[in-house]
């Protein structure tokens, strides 16, 4: 074999790498297509969910020119155009927002049906407890500051909350998890707590956070819940990662004169990166869902609140499905953040088998 052949081998490896990349893009495209096909099918007249699920592409009928429907997303009255033009405050949005939360309108306070509907949102609960305990009432939607009547602020606020919560939780989880390796007492105290809350699905804990912290302090509720959730996950991931480091390697470090400090720095820290990083991706993926979910439970500013409002608007106003745009926005955002993470993780784990397979 000559060196030209060798270069050829290398070129082939590069072609393969490109092919794999293209394949993954194709898979994503197929996934998105299937998602919309399923949505269209569910919204058909023959579907039992016909009345609950609006068609994804505006008022376009089933299979009746889907392309036109996609185009509709971008047209002036389409969801994306609507979403885009209402990123900032607008009077139109203000009206819709107020209309979407009719339980806050004085005329509706005594309407039992409205109350049932709104208590499902958790909103009513907090205003009632606040009234009973003499605490502050949640701000009625009509009195929110002006900047709240657009999509932009809600999206930004949610992103900041989730990333902050995930960051706090990761730091706390790693600190507790890794220090529990050095101080067994920490593990004795924290493992039962973490196992207890870890087994109860975090979505069940969500309403409790809304009750404890209330909706008037959304910082505490959303960031708190996301922090709590990531702390739990990262605690387990960091402990498991450290336990997976072979005993022989730690013993070898000891006979080379390793001190607790140097073993932590040169063995545990780098050796646990792949598993911790993988855990962080899982935690963050969960945090997106959790953050938005807890906002749906009655927090006034944030993407989850938009979703909540849109549940009303879809039924009552035949508003363009900005919800589609919203969901897409969060989906794309989560994928982009995950891709960025992957780049960092690949760099940090370039020593591993995975690194070898990726040709780093």
């Amino acid at each position, binding site marked *: 074999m000559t060196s030209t052949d060798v270069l050829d081998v290398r070129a082939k490896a590069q072609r393969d790498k490109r092919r794999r990349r293209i394949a993954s893009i194709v898979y994503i495209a197929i996934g998105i297509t299937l998602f919309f096909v399923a949505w269209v099918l569910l919204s058909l007249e023959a579907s039992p969910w016909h009345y609950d699920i609006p068609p994804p592409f505006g008022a376009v009928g089933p299979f009746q020119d889907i392309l036109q429907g996609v185009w509709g997303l971008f047209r002036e009255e389409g969801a994306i155009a609507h979403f885009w033009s209402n990123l900032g405050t607008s009077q139109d949005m203000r009206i819709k927002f107020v209309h979407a939360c009719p339980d806050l309108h004085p005329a509706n306070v005594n309407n039992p049906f409205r109350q049932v509907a709104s208590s499902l949102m958790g909103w009513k609960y907090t205003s009632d407890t606040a009234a009973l305990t003499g605490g502050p009432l949640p701000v009625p939607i009509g009195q929110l500051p002006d900047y709240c009547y657009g999509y932009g602020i809600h999206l930004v606020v949610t992103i900041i909350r989730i990333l902050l919560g995930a960051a706090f939780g990761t730091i706390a989880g790693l600190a507790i998890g890794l220090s529990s390796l050095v101080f067994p007492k920490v593990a004795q105290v924290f493992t039962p707590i973490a196992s207890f809350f870890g087994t109860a699905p975090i979505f069940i804990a969500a309403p409790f956070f809304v009750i404890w912290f209330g909706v008037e302090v959304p910082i505490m509720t959303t960031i708190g819940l996301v922090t709590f959730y990531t702390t739990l996950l990262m605690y387990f991931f960091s402990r498991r990662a450290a336990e997976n480091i072979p005993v022989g390697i730690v013993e070898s470090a000891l006979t080379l004169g390793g001190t607790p400090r140097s073993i932590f720095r040169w063995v545990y820290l780098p*050796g646990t990166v792949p598993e911790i990083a993988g855990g962080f991706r899982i935690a963050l993926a969960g945090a997106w869902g959790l953050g938005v979910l807890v906002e749906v439970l009655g927090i006034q500013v944030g993407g989850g609140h938009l979703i909540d409002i849109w549940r009303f608007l879809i039924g009552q106003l035949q508003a363009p499905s900005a919800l589609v745009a919203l969901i897409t926005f969060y989906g794309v955002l989560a994928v982009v953040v995950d891709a960025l993470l992957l780049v960092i993780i690949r760099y940090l784990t370039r020593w591993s088998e995975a690194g070898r397979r990726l040709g780093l």
Partner: protein
Amino acid sequence: MSRVVSFEGLWCVFEHRSGQLVNALHDVNFEVQPGEFVCVVGRSGHGKTTLLRVLAGLQPPTAGQIRLGEEVVEGPGADRAMVFQQDTVFPWLHVRDNVEFGLRALKVDDEERKSTTAHWLDAVGLTDFADSWPRELSGGMRKRVALAAAMAVGSDVILMDEPFGSLDYFTRRNLHDVLLDLWEETQKTIFFVTHDIEEALILADRVILLAEGKLVDDIPVDLPRPRDEDVRASAGAVDITKTILAHLGITEEEATQV
């Protein structure tokens, strides 16, 4: 400042899950002079690894003690660096950082650390691979990394537990040469566990034979060095081999059957 290593009434008893007690070490007494190359030989499960682990400070003895000079062994430390049978090179550190690990832990200053590391990488012939990841090396090269890391911390006693057991014949022979060169250069005391009699004959000044945890014989190997094929075929070498085989409970017929 090399020190005598003394094993004094050393016992190590394990309780197996069945409740049965196993004397991994059974009243072991001997002394090793500074700079000696000692091979510990015995059948599988007869306490070789245990002896080394107690000496490394990774396993507390049930009774008795090991002393280095006046100092009693109480835990692991850089004065008894160990090369393990399994692959213990840190996969997440470059070859150079692997060799530097012990020096960093000992807080050796930067300049000295770099020159020491360069010296030992050169000694094991890995200078060109200093910036490689361990996964890019062969098994034999990774053993050299482990050897360089153990040498670099400057201990006067080096422990090796069947370090070359998983390597092919040629690589093993090559590493024997590397190890003997380093030993002659540094005059360190080396404890080398093996169940390969040929390996013991190539390396050792002295063979310690363990059977069921007891020290059953202590055989001086006063063959001339280098121990090439001729030396190992000499009458003296054959005698030693026979003695070892007899102690291990393998008669000559049994040996030929295997």
